[in-house]
């Protein structure tokens, strides 16, 4: 069982599946840190469309929070601003986490080749084990 898990969640369906998968690796002493990265590029949208970014991000991961409340998981939530891949790696290096869990974006072959997904970059650069949930 892991003591401390960093769950990178963007609010997508895949990140919810990653959150579900995490339930298999925890006990009552495990702390799951849900990390949501707020992209700086979204600030223009936030201002122009009167959206409160942090509030919106909270809504996005509400489904995961509900699940963890129901399953009595110890968790905390942190919001960080930056590029998703860099920020996940940075946070994982700065804390005492045992593993990073994140969802695979499920890109097709061409997109995967062209773009190099967040999960791929995190797996390449992190210093701790990374679990990518399909």
């Amino acid at each position, binding site marked *: 069982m892991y003591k401390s898990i960093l769950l990178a969640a963007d609010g997508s369906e895949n990140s919810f599946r990653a959150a579900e998968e995490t339930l298999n690796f925890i006990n009552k002493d495990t702390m799951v840190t849900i990390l949501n990265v707020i992209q700086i590029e979204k600030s*223009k*949208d*936030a*201002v122009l469309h009167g959206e409160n*970014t942090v509030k919106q991000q909270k809504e996005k991961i509400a489904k995961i929070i509900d699940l963890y409340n129901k399953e009595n998981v110890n968790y905390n939530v942190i919001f960080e*601003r930056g*590029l998703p891949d860099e920020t996940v790696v940075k946070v994982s290096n700065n804390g005492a986490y045992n593993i990073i869990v994140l969802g695979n974006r499920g890109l097709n072959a061409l997109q995967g080749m*062209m*773009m190099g997904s967040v999960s791929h970059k995190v797996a390449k650069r992190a210093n701790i084990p990374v679990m990518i949930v399909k």
Partner: protein
Amino acid sequence: MIEKFKREWLTSPGTNIMAGIVVALALIPEAIAFSIIAGVDPMVGLYASFLIAVIISFVGGRPAMISAATGAVALLVVPLVREYGVEYLFAATILMGIIQIILGIFKVGKLLKFIPNSVMIGFVNALAIMIFIAQLQHIFGISFDTYIYVIITIAILYVLPRFFKKIPAPLVALVVLTSCYIFFGAEVRTVGDLGAIEKSLPSFIIPDVPYTLETLKIIFPYSLSMAIVGLVESLLTARIVDNATDTYSSKNKESRGQGIANFVTGFFGGMGGCAMIGQSVINVRSGATTRLSTFTAGVFLMLLIILFGDLVVQIPMPILAGIMVVVTISTFDWKTFKYMKKAPRTDVFVMLITVAIILATDNLAIGVIAGVFFSAIFFATKISKVTVTKELINNNYVFYFEGQIFFASIDTMIDQLEFKKYDKDILLDFSKAHLWDDSAVDAIDTMVRKFEDKGNTVYVDQLNADSRKIVKELSQLNEQHLT
């Protein structure tokens, strides 16, 4: 004081210097492109970007925000430069600065809160469309090679960041394609065809214009537009940087700082500028948090021009045009289309009318003012709905008023009353209404008089504290009415 200085200048200097360098590299093509839009030598935009960035780093209100020569201001001054020449642009920039300093002193930063989002969305969209249109002359109808350079530039800008983000893609496009041009040659126009580059620091000048009332009449409308547009874009950018960094910044200090920066820039042969949304986002995304990043951006830009000025004139125009096309695509608010479906129809109308007026007048300032005007009218219409309900109690009438009573709503209010009552007690109940101005008070006086003319006794009841106060000051009602 020293605490604040340390925080705003010395926090993680390495990251901030790196961010500033990245911004400087991205600023160069834009500064040149905006100079060409305005119809002046590239040096005018480059000097402006250097000076504005360095000055604003000291006097601005928003650390880590990037200000430089901008497209918004460049687009405004096209007719001035065409008809009167660049010296008038310098004079107009100085006056622009003076106007902004005055607006800053009078705390106009607060007034910009009254620019609704619909107008802001119209502003950025019109800005993007205008800069895009300005690039077309550098792309179409020149040569086959031009198309190739444009296409490769745009491809580099979109594909490269997928692989690595450390070096800005525009710089890679500039270096790679300019090298191609220098080695292999191509049938394209270059920056050198459109203006000269000087490898020297800007020096103090007094704009060479006649110092007469005539000159003031020529430049004042331009300076006023430049000042307004500069502040609108700067304060919008400041809000975006506030959001991106989760911090707050002084908008009045920023207005004043923008004024000082433009005032000084005009005396050193630069064109007016303001904060830049795209560059500021690049800066913050690169980790910038302090004034040092903005300062570095300005200084490094100047350093590059002094070192590589000879190469800059060899940059093919289609590379700049390609870069600017991508800049306009990211400036445009792509959520607009969703907004047009979801937002209230009046907001969509205000957004569209702002864009339409800007494109029709080629003037962002007029569009913003018109947009604010229309949204104010819609707002007034929306809240000027007063409803009056009538109740008959013991053979006497009670009229209940509900809503905001002011100059725009009194007509609808009075239309709902029937004055054909005789010899009754009439109670006017304002518990759910608010009186805002002297027109409201006049209207109530009129109503009371009309009822009294027919022998009724009228009581005005349940005024809230504010409403009671203006009634006491302005109304002809007496104590008996207000029991």
